């Protein structure tokens, strides 16, 4: 081995930041003699996040010290650090704002806000950000103030005054999102009702009844109930949860892991944030049941880095649950062990792809792996892993407690139960809505108060940036997996973003194209270069300056989209064109028909 370390010693603040994660350095550090691929490396991203939070950036000597402590070659450490949007490799002001200019915020005047922030606060103290998951309170911002006690605040209805206040470390009041729906409140049963910091309150509202029931049903009983309930993943891929859990439970390799994908980053999606912020014990209990059912003694919740309030509340809930014997060894006196930890992302949409998420936890770049092998056989640390979205896990609570039959009392035959929808954009009451599957898009929009100001609805983005635009003539589509599939659409992560007649589709398409280009991990050619070519092509169409004719451009886009869909490694590249293609069917730029 010829590893070479960055020898420049760290500054005091950098040493303190790294040691806050790894503990004090041993008196005689072992030489950097071999690249570590074991569990030590999994502390790389938490360490880099600590440097960012406490020092304000990841300096060369800070990174060098972190790599030395962890046995990571500096080039690889740099490769990881330079992958994430929330880590800065350049020195910048300790107080820094990320202003969202993504779809919902753009429709809510983010461009004006960005211009005003530049004028009043200068260019150095802020940057644009992709969707911050606060779309129901658009426009949104995330402000971080670095220091020994870092302060992070994400807030909606952002104004320059609010951003300036947050930059000077003044607390900005968090707003309670709007919740609504029709039919039984299951996923939202405790949201806005319980005190999210109180285990007693959680228990008083039915908390931990599901885990007790799970322990009575036994592993097989839980697996059977989940399968009978026909629960499928709510993160976008709609894979049957029962089949996933059963495959992990029966996998001979040990240990097993359960992972919660809380890296909610699909533009327009904020339901998981609301669930975690307002019912954190629900997720802790659901993860415990998942561990019990799949034979896993360790669970990890990978939470997107832009959700500081969710992180604080979830961390608190885990600590309280552990203190009360609901996590750790011998849970509820039944000889079942389960440990749970939260890992934070650092600004990378791609880490919501399950195998990229594993790589991120393991301390590697968040690049998706080729599948097969699938996570149920080879997931986190190469071991059998059940990975599920937050909403999927929370749905498990009702199924286990009340049984599959009760769960399927609402919804459609193909999609039993209820679903959360993230309604944002031009509606009176944007927020999280829980509806039985099968409700129509126009019913949901009416529930959210309809389009304000008597304006006409122009288009709805269904399923997120990786979903589809539909025009006003298709609002009768029923929101279920089978109905949307039959209509050539997808529910995705439950995004319903409404645009009215004053919203131009062109800039929105350009934002979507820019988003996929920015968030591509860069591994495979179809996505790495294809998303660049797509953005260039959309720019030409919107500016009505086609290369050749509009028809040749559309043919080119069609081939580009097909090859990205067919040949990309993961879902990001495979879906990077779908919203754009669907919008072009609504808006024939340049007079194409």
């Amino acid at each position, binding site marked *: *081995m*010829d*590893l*070479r370390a*960055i020898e420049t010693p760290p500054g005091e603040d950098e040493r303190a930041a790294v040691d806050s994660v790894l503990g004090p350095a041993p008196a005689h550090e072992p030489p950097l003699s071999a*690249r570590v691929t074991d569990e030590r490396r999994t502390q790389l991203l938490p360490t880099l996040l600590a440097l960012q939070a406490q020092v304000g950036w990841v300096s*060369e000597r800070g*990174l060098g010290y972190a790599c030395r402590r962890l046995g990571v*070659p*500096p*080039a*690889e450490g*740099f*490769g990881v650090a*330079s*992958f994430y*949007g929330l880590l*800065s*490799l*350049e020195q910048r002001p300790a107080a820094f704002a990320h202003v969202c200019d993504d779809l919902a915020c753009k429709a809510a005047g983010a461009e004006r806000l960005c211009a005003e922030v530049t004028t009043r606060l200068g260019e150095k103290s802020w940057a*644009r*950000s992709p969707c911050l998951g606060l779309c129901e309170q658009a426009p949104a911002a995330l402000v971080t103030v670095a220091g020994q006690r870092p302060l992070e605040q994400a807030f909606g209805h952002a104004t320059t005054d609010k951003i300036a206040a947050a930059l000077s470390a003044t607390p900005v009041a968090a707003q309670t999102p709007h919740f609504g729906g029709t039919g039984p409140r299951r996923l939202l049963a405790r949201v806005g009702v319980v005190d999210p910091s109180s285990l007693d309150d959680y228990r008083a509202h039915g908390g931990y009844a599901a885990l007790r029931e799970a322990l009575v049903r036994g592993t097989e009983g839980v697996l059977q109930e989940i399968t009978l309930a026909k629960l499928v993943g709510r993160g976008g891929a709609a894979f049957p949860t029962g089949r996933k859990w059963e495959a992990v439970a029966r996998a001979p390799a040990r240990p097993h892991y359960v992972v919660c994908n809380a890296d909610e980053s699909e533009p327009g999606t904020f339901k998981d944030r609301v669930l975690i912020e307002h019912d954190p014990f629900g997720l802790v209990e659901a993860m415990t049941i998942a561990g019990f059912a799949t034979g896993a003694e360790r669970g990890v919740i990978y939470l997107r880095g832009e959700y500081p309030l969710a992180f604080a509340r979830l961390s608190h809930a885990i600590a309280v649950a552990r203190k009360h014997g609901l996590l750790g060894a011998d849970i509820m006196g039944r000889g079942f062990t389960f440990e749970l930890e939260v890992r934070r992302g650092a*600004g*990378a949409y791609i880490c919501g792809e399950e195998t990229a998420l594993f790589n991120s936890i393991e301390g590697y*770049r968040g690049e998706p792996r*080729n599948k*097969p092998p699938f996570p149920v056989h080879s997931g986190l640390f190469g071991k059998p892993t059940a990975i599920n979205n937050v909403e999927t896990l929370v749905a498990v609570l009702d199924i286990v407690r009340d049984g599959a039959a009760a769960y399927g009392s609402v919804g459609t035959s193909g999609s039993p139960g209820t679903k959360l929808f993230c309604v944002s954009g031009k509606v009176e009451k944007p927020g999280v809505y829980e509806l039985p599957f099968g409700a129509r898009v126009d019913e949901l929009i009416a529930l959210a108060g309809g389009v304000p100001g008597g304006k006409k609805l122009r288009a709805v983005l269904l399923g997120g940036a990786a979903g589809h635009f539909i025009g006003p003539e298709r609002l009768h589509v029923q929101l279920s997996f089978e109905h949307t599939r039959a209509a050539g659409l997808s529910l995705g992560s439950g995004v319903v973003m409404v645009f009215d007649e004053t919203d131009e589709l062109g800039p929105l398409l*350009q934002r979507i194209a*820019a988003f996929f*280009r*920015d*968030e*591509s991990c*860069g*591994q*495979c*050619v*179809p996505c*790495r*270069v*294809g*998303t*660049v*070519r797509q*953005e*260039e*092509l*959309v*720019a*030409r169409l919107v*500016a009505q300056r086609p*290369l050749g004719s509009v028809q040749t451009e559309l043919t080119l886009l069609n*081939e580009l989209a*097909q*090859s990205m869909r*067919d*040949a*990309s*490694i993961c879902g990001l590249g*495979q879906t990077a064109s779908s919203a754009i293609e669907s919008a072009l069917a609504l808006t024939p730029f340049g007079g194409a028909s």
Partner: protein
Amino acid sequence: MTRRTVQLTIDGKQASVPEDATLLDACTSLGIETPTLCWAENLTPVNVCRICVVEVEGARVLVPSCSRKVEAGMVVHTDSPRVRTSRKLVLELLGSSVDMSLSPIFLEYSKRYGADPARFGPKAPKAKAGERDAAVPGHHHAPDGTHAATVAQPVKRDNDLFLRDYEKCMLCMKCVQACGTDAQNTFAIAVSGRGFEARISTEHDTALPDSACVFCGNCIGVCPTGALMFNVEHDLRAAKKWDESKQTVTDTVCSYCGVGCTLSLRVQDNQIVRVTSPSDNSVTAGNLCVKGRFGWGFVKGDE
């Protein structure tokens, strides 16, 4: 122990291959030539270039043949319209963003699949030195679409032995693998950045002599596009004196130590212009050390 064999159908023909074979192996066993760019026989497949994709019946998307293992009863198509379109687009996307002019196999594939990179418009001007290295993930200048973005940038020449011309880098990962666990275990280089700004780099873009690099040159040995090149070859090419018709390749054994590495010396005008070792050589598997790769200055010495 005998390995079990698996039967599958490729382009209507029956293939019978060991159970741990890849689809690429199975295609080769039937004489079906499958294009590859990031694959190499002496490296772990990374399946990132996606030119080797094939269509497997029942699969939602195409699969990379270089790394996908065979399964009994698979029905595979290697020349379907879907396969041809994706291969053509991969070639056009690379051709429009990377200087692939020193990859004869790329030019041959481009002809075979009718790739026309110019469909994406004229290439954007070269980036300034350091510009791509300073890219911040999640941020880029919005394009107006009049030019096709490229990875073009000035050559990095920071030592006397070899240089890095990342205008020619298609991110096949071979150099990273050769520097890492597949050969050298030095880890001097890795991928940094994200998306189109992803790049091969030392930590903080440190110059090679200040990095962990040991100048074994195994990265040059595996580079398929000429992005990593001996300085002497680069200078000859720049002076338009590089002439393969005047070159010979002679195999010899390295005289420095007792390992016995085979050296393939490429010579032009009585001057060594490149040193490699055959990738199927049982001693080297294509790898050398700094002495074998670069220590031939004495050949032209006075004594």
